[in-house]
């Protein structure tokens, strides 16, 4: 059953493909018998990637059913870890590091610039659903500051010009969070 999320868009049916279900089984096999709950974080990542970049309650319930654990066990974990989005996000999620070393190297200015350029604040999504902004803590790129994570990869030594290019390129229809874009 398709479910409507709060953005009014329809989330595709909540079921992993055969290929992803195989991956789920492979992940579960990494742990001893009866310890399948250990697979929770890897599978939540898989689910978030598969189902529009965030974890809705039906998605979390689905993950619980795959692991044969109670839905509450999934909720308490999903709410603890900051990488899991509990609200819909735009197609391209830009996660800026705001911690000390980045802050000392113009992170605040770059975040400010991007907010103004996209007309949204950190924590918000553009009306066309293309971009969301998030501020996160140190991502282990302090020597290459300021920086942001977009999809699977890091974008480092950010400048205003680089942000312009990122927004132009990654705002296109074909954006794929698993690709590395040379900017």
């Amino acid at each position, binding site marked *: 059953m398709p479910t409507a999320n709060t953005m009014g868009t329809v989330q595709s049916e909540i079921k992993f493909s055969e290929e992803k279900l195989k991956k789920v089984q492979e992940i579960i096999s990494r742990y001893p018998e009866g310890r399948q709950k250990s697979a929770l*974080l890897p599978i939540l*990542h898989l689910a978030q990637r598969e189902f529009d970049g965030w974890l809705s309650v039906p998605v979390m319930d689905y993950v619980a059913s795959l692991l044969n654990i109670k839905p509450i066990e999934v909720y308490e974990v999903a709410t603890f*870890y900051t990488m899991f989005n509990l609200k819909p996000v735009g197609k391209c999620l830009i996660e800026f590091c705001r911690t000390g070393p980045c802050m000392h190297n113009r992170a605040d200015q770059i975040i400010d610039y991007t907010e103004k350029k996209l007309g949204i604040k950190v924590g918000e999504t553009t009306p066309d659903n293309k971009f969301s902004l998030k501020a996160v803590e*140190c991502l282990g790129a*302090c020597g290459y500051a300021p920086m942001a994570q977009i999809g699977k990869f890091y974008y480092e030594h950010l400048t205003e010009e680089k942000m312009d290019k990122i927004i132009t390129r990654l705002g296109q229809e074909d954006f794929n969070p698993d690709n590395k874009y040379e900017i």
Partner: protein
Amino acid sequence: MARKLLLENINVPGIKSFDVYRANGGYRSVEKALKTMSPDDVMEEVKKSGLRGRGGAGFPTGMKWSFLDRKSDKPRYLVCNADESEPGTFKDRFLMEYIPHILIEGLIVSSYSLGSNSTYIYIRGEYRWIVDILENAIAEAKHNGFLGKNILGSGYDLEIYVQPGGGAYICGEETALIESLEGKRGNPRMKPPFPAISGLYNCPTVVNNVETLATVVPIINMGGDEYAKIGVGRSTGTKLISACGHMNKPGVYEIELGLPVDEFLNSDEYCGGIRAGHTLKAVVPGGSSVPILPAELFYKTKEGVARLMSYESLSEGGFASGSMLGSGGFIAMDETTCIVRNLWNFTRFYHHESCGQCSPCREGTGWMEKVLHRLEHGHGSMSDIDLLVDIAKKIEGNTICPLGDAAAWPVASHIRHFREEFEYHVKFPEKVAHSPFAHSADYKRELNTVLQ
């Protein structure tokens, strides 16, 4: 050129791949250990090497391994801590990204010594592309007979799995990491029992840092005694330092422990000095949790002895005038840095990352963040400064895990060494309210002018 043990072959083209890594002497330590040494022999070499944990606490690795309960009939586990989330620290990432096989090699030898047949690499979830790199390296090693069943005909079986975290600094703490690996919230456990007795799935477990485990490779290759000759005193061997902040050449460097701090920061072989036209104001030498040092106390101890990059030298003077080598996250700040803002930022980090189990940490970090926010934005009062010191004291030592201390130490040290700058924020609120950094360079001069 200084001796390199971990990054020796980092510039060899294709070193990421098994074939090139192997052709450059890779996996020799596995052959040596599995064919000629017993698990205890391996541990003896690690003990002799004097290797100390590279994750932050500097606990002797061989001793940690010796605590592992080998008598119980439960499985034993080795877990590699690749959570790397301490602000300023990005060395494990460098190693895993550019020379992943050295970690896999170190894991095989260490797992053999500890008797682990399933070893997990718990990596921070944000390092998504590194998960692929590691899984690829594991598959290559397995394909070449260094993982799986009956490795090199020794009868020893091992699988290595990569487990992503979910974005939580606290999961770097070893018992929180174990909870997280069991699919739970990252709440640190009460100790005892220590993981060596009851860790993952209540089985005996050793948790070690990425760099620690990679270092087992050169230790086995050269022998523990040889390794112990490198370095200075009880700081043996080499250490990866990730350097960031206002320097000319930020990046990851492998140093021999005992290198003078002046040479590390100012020579072209390493950081290349503070950026042109600026001067050093302060250094946080071992990740955000360790005490900050003003430039004078960074270069020389209070007694005037030139400091070295070693566990002992950096902590000379204790908390009053020293710091710690910590994780090797080296942050240099020049005179444009606002110390109050730096502390506010760090404190916000700890508040955000507190798991919330103990009230002194959960509430205390929040209060400190609030007070620092008002000081930084020109709404503070003089009594706020002592209030901060007081809250920090009440957190320290009163919590389940060391995150509480890690949040308290920066507060105490920033205020101890830069009290005038905090007072300046109270006396001249209009100057700090709208320009978070502009005043930092000359607050002392301004302060003096006004006071006269």
